[in-house]
């Protein structure tokens, strides 16, 4: 990390300039949310397909927000990514459990 510290500093300084990409992320989140709401509000689309749209929109939006707003795309985020990823794996198995293996 120390060897190319000065260049690293310059690039990060450069990266923190300007709110542009955050506003792009915001507009993207907005659009994805509106698509999701519209899919439900219209009531025209069949149930299964609506579910797919909803989950798809949510996943894309969360991915964008985590990458840009939570800086997970930046370097030095190996352990945060691993931590969240492992959490997501655990959650995934629990959702399968809840959908298929719970009754009464």
């Amino acid at each position, binding site marked *: 990390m120390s060897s190319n510290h000065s260049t690293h500093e310059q690039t990060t300084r450069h990266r923190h300039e300007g709110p542009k990409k955050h506003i792009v992320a915001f507009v993207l989140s907005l659009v994805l949310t509106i698509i999701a709401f519209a899919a439900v509000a219209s009531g025209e689309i069949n149930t299964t397909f609506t579910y797919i749209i909803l989950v798809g929109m949510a996943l894309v939006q969360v991915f964008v927000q985590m990458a840009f707003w939570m800086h997970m795309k930046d370097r030095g985020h190996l352990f945060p990514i691993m931590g969240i990823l492992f*959490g997501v*794996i*655990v959650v995934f198995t*629990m959702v399968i*459990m*809840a959908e298929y293996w719970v009754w009464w």
Partner: protein
Amino acid sequence: MTAHAAHAHAHPVKRYRGLMDWLTTVDHKKIGILYLIAGGLFFLVGGLEAILIRIQLIGPQKDFVGADTFNELLTMHGTTMIFLAAMPMLFALMNAVIPLQIGARDVAFPFLNSLGFWTFFFGGVLLNVSWFAGHVPDAGWTSYVPLAGPTYNSGHGVDYYVLGLQIAGIGTLLGGINFMATIINMRAPGMSFMRMPMFTWSIFITSMLIVFAFPVLTVGLVALMFDRLFQANFFETATGGSTVLWEHVFWVFGHPEVYILIMPAFGIISEVVSTFSRKRLFGYSSMVFALILIAFLGFMVWAHHMFTTGLGPVANGLFSIATMLIAVPTGVKIFNWLFTLWGGSIRFTTASLFGIGFIPTFTMGGVTGVMLAAAPADYQYHDTYFVVAHFHYVIVGGLINGIFAGLFYWWPKMFGRTLNETLGKWFFWTFYIGFHMTFFVQHFLGLIGMPRRVWTYLPNQGFDTMNLVSTIGAFLMGIGTIMLLINIVITSFKAKNAANDPWEDGRSLEWSIPSPPPEYNFKQIPLVRSADAWWKEKMEGKKEMTPSEPVGPIHMPSPSIKPLIMSIGLFIAGFGFMYDKLYLAIGGIGLTLLCMLLRSVYDDHGFHISEEEQEKGVQA
């Protein structure tokens, strides 16, 4: 660094003595000792409960304790041993050893470390206050609903379980985060992940399991608490709740939990076996890979505790196969220990005896585990003493043997005094023989049909003799434990003269510094040049590690009473929730939040230990 010197005494050094020192300490070595004392006390309580259970079962149709008391005893025995004895004793070793092994001056969050201890302690006290309140948890350590729900358990017993574990769980979660951050961020220069001692690796993986498993328990306990206190319906079938949901949630937490217990033992055994064989650990990287694989699979097998619930053949088949897969990485570890011993010049110290004793015992527990993993056969074993024998073989034969090995091994590093070896060996043989007497016969009791968790049995069913043998074994384990206590007392009167490297064959960094270490651990953070860093330096004829920094004033965190007060706040709030005293609940939580606020607003500048003070040798 010299710029620091001017500031060394800029802030008044606040140091306490005596009791206040222990109540306010943020030093990982002292917190380790606190964990050991508290965990040890709960271990004695849990052990006493076990003895009472065994006395009741010494023969058919005894009425030494009533059926209700028996239920309370078995519930409190399981809960106490797992959450209040085994885990804290592991945390004791983690605290005492990990920062030393990675060449750090403390953990990443010393304040949270102290908070973690005190929340565990008060959670444990809350749970055990139930004995005096007259409402004791009696639904088993798994607390299955509807038995634990408000309909069938209207007293406050299970409330103590829910709130006690909730508070203790906070402490465990904090500990997990703390040790993960410590191991990632605070390793000495040169110590890459693949140069870490195996105990550090095992604690890293264990901490990861804690971080991802404990929140599941938190939610499960919240749901049960809401059901019991606020008429929620998570598990109330009459209003749409699901009892199967509790089983899932509990075991999604519970299975990783039992791996949280055994993994540190794997690490301890790796250290002990390698040290006392005078050989480096065989198959280091396969050991690491096996740990990671076991941890991952550990999250994918919870439903093997629920084969008879009726999940259906597909789910049972999947979980059956996933469970059996775990035998592969575990087998890798067993063979690696054997190959480490192979051709080594083995020394039979007490620690080494426990370490070597661990291997066959744990293997037996593993083999019965594979038997239980076969879903169709499990219908036969389910809820019998076969299961009891299995998990005592892995928990006592595995984890407790590991803890005793670790205690004898690191005792000189923790206290500066080596435990008596003769008494130690007596302790080992008494405990080890007692253990096998107690639990080996239980396999057969289970196979011929004795159900677990039942307070008595009828004569002439073939149960009588084996139960008698089992009870005698339990007494032997009790006698062994008393020998350990005597050993500790005797040792504490001896001179504090343990060498830096009392076993002479130490391999990792903790053996390169005094026993016990000064409060800053390393005067200069060492430079790590290979795995088994200290061994390498010794082999090159060096008397100490190569430093990676010049001598300078050392920055230390200030002691604080706030963790204790925060935990007392939660303790009070627990009673408030339980007995519908809103002012107590709000007051207790308020006290905790107030401490958090003060902690946030007033920066902790810590203090510096100057070079002159280092020369004098500030002892922990």
